């Protein structure tokens, strides 16, 4: 399966925070050929284990979250659905937005929007709060209530496409594109003799409270961890100092959330391999699973590696193929002989 096919597969399956069953199954399928064993933990995290065979080897946790932002039904009004978001969604992008309602089988929905002649002067300039929006599912009140009960989840209805020569646009690339990075990294390391036991954590619930990473890390009890998540790509309307151009390489995190020696090791490896890379300074929380991972039990030496991504938490997010490639190469180089350096720190 090539990269585009992997992205399409991961993007095409649905798993909003708290309801990741389907995407966990797909992730397990993709992970299985690359590790010794895969299982689901209590909360629904996917855990894949690749032992190095050395006694007393350190455990390295590699995390990428499988959940996407989504919605959940809160009530019914004249056949239309009231809903809340699962994770952070910008209400401005919702009017006339197509959704997949995750019933069995899935149903179609679209966020209702008022036509111009019904709106007041200037009303179309204002944002409608999410709590005032309704989803049109084309049913009567009775049928809507019966077929789509309160508590039912929903996701954006979008696909995964090649954009231009070297970009990919797709639903849920935050953070499935990084899970794909982990798969590519494992493929690169298949023939290598490692000196750390690798635990791949396809975590759930990052978008709401990182619960998956919290319990997953506790269960695995690693000494070392790398959280791979997306970061803000640079689009024409975004501020320069907080964003990273697509195609300019994976982003290495530096700051209190990251162990200094791991940041340095990532930079060193990138330079050795002459890979493009960027630095992201985070003076407090990284806003990723890395924040929870770092303070598990007696503490975990943590690094954060990110993929620049545009239009985060929108139905179509965009990444650059070369960043995926370089991120995997960098991570693979980081992992080789990691145990040796970790023992000294």
């Amino acid at each position, binding site marked *: 399966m090539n990269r585009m096919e992997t992205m399409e597969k991961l993007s095409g399956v649905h798993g909003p*925070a*708290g*309801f990741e*069953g389907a995407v966990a199954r797909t992730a397990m399928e993709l992970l299985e050929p690359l590790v010794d064993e895969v299982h689901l*933990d*209590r*909360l629904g995290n996917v855990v894949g284990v690749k032992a190095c065979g050395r006694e007393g080897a350190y455990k390295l946790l590699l995390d990428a979250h499988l959940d996407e932002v989504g919605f*959940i039904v*809160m*009530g019914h009004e004249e056949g239309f659905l*009231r809903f*809340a978001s*699962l994770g952070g969604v910008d209400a401005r992008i919702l009017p006339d937005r197509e959704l997949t309602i995750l019933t069995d089988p899935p149903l179609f929905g679209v966020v209702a929007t008022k036509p111009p002649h019904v709106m007041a002067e200037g009303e179309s300039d204002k944002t409608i709060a999410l*709590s005032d929006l309704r989803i049109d599912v084309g049913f009567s009140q009775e049928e809507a209530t019966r077929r789509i*009960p*309160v*508590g039912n989840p929903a996701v954006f209805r979008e696909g995964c496409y090649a954009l231009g020569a070297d970009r990919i646009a797709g639903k849920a690339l935050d953070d499935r594109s990084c899970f794909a990075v982990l798969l590519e990294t494992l493929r690169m390391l298949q023939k290598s003799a490692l000196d750390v036991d690798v635990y791949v954590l396809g975590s759930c*619930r990052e978008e*709401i*409270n990182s*619960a998956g990473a*919290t*319990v*997953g890390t*506790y*269960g695995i009890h690693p000494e070392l961890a790398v959280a791979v998540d997306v970061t803000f790509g640079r689009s024409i309307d975004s501020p320069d100092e907080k964003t990273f151009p697509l195609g300019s390489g994976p982003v290495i995190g530096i700051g209190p959330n990251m162990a200094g020696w791991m940041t340095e090791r990532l930079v060193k490896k990138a330079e050795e391999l002459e890979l493009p890379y960027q630095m992201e300074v985070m003076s407090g929380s990284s806003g990723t699973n890395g924040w929870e991972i770092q303070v598990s039990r007696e503490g975990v030496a943590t690094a954060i590696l990110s993929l620049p991504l545009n239009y985060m938490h929108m139905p179509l997010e965009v990444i650059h193929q070369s960043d995926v490639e370089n991120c995997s190469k960098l991570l693979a180089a980081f992992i080789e002989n990691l145990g040796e350096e970790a023992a000294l720190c």
Partner: protein
Amino acid sequence: MEYRDLLEQLIRAHGPSGDEEDVCQVIQRNVPATVDEVTVDVMGNLIVHQKGNGPKVMLAAHMDSVGIIVTHIEKNGFLRFGALGGLEPKAIYQAPVRFRNGVGGVIAVNENKAEKEFKLTDLYLDIGAADETEARNLVAVGDTAVFAAPILKNGTRLISPCLDNRAGCVALLAVMQQVKNPVNDLYFVFTAQEEVGLRGAKPVSWSLEPDYALVVDVTCPDDVPGALHEGTTAVGKGTAIKVMDHSMIAHLAMVAQLSRLADEIGITVQKDLLKVGGTDAGAVHVSRSGVLTGGVSIPCRYTHTPTELIDQTDLEACVELIRAFCESELVRR
């Protein structure tokens, strides 16, 4: 109706977050003698163990209520206070309160702020003291007080302070009395300091290491005039199964199991989703390597005011559902 007396006993006991000793003792007095073990841990959580051979099940209900704590005594005898739990200035304005030692007071607002939007720091507590000396004879900085309002009853409807979460505590005590031969290994935990951040639940979950957890608390309904639709339940429409709130998403398997059990025992249930607000489940489900966590909720209007409102039939339905869960075959995961 025997729940009512028990409920009234618990409501009258003093037990704001961090000062739960009294209510803890009242609960202990009502624990049946047939249980296997009763302990109180470092945080003040009360743990009642009813041994069974099955997986470990933790049933949790917080025993603390919201309240206030004296922070400063003015020279003129008025008191300044901090909140114990989430308090809305508008909701507690002119509320009567009572200290553990019986001293009463009323919450009022700085007169110059009365017409505008006021904050918690614009409020003060008046205990009728003439000056600082008299005030210091009655209370000290660090003393706690809770709402002091009557318990009103209209048929099965109750209007009272502290229904959040003495109603949940009563539910657990009732289940404790009704479950004779537990199939599962049951731990009834009356937690401390939930209202200030789920603080009791976190350490006790770590200590007990349960396989399953069921958290019993009140939930905010969506059935009042001008409702903002932040919740999905209604008072009097049965017990509510927690699906989601701000602190967690209930384990799907737990929601499914509780729904199935409700069906089997023939009670109507509602689904409980809340946009804002959390319960001890938020702390329990992420303990160690995770706990299979669900929630059973009692719809309650006007929480965190002197006049909260529930329907006792919802409480009774909760008891039935929790008991069914305790007696069901659970798999060790």
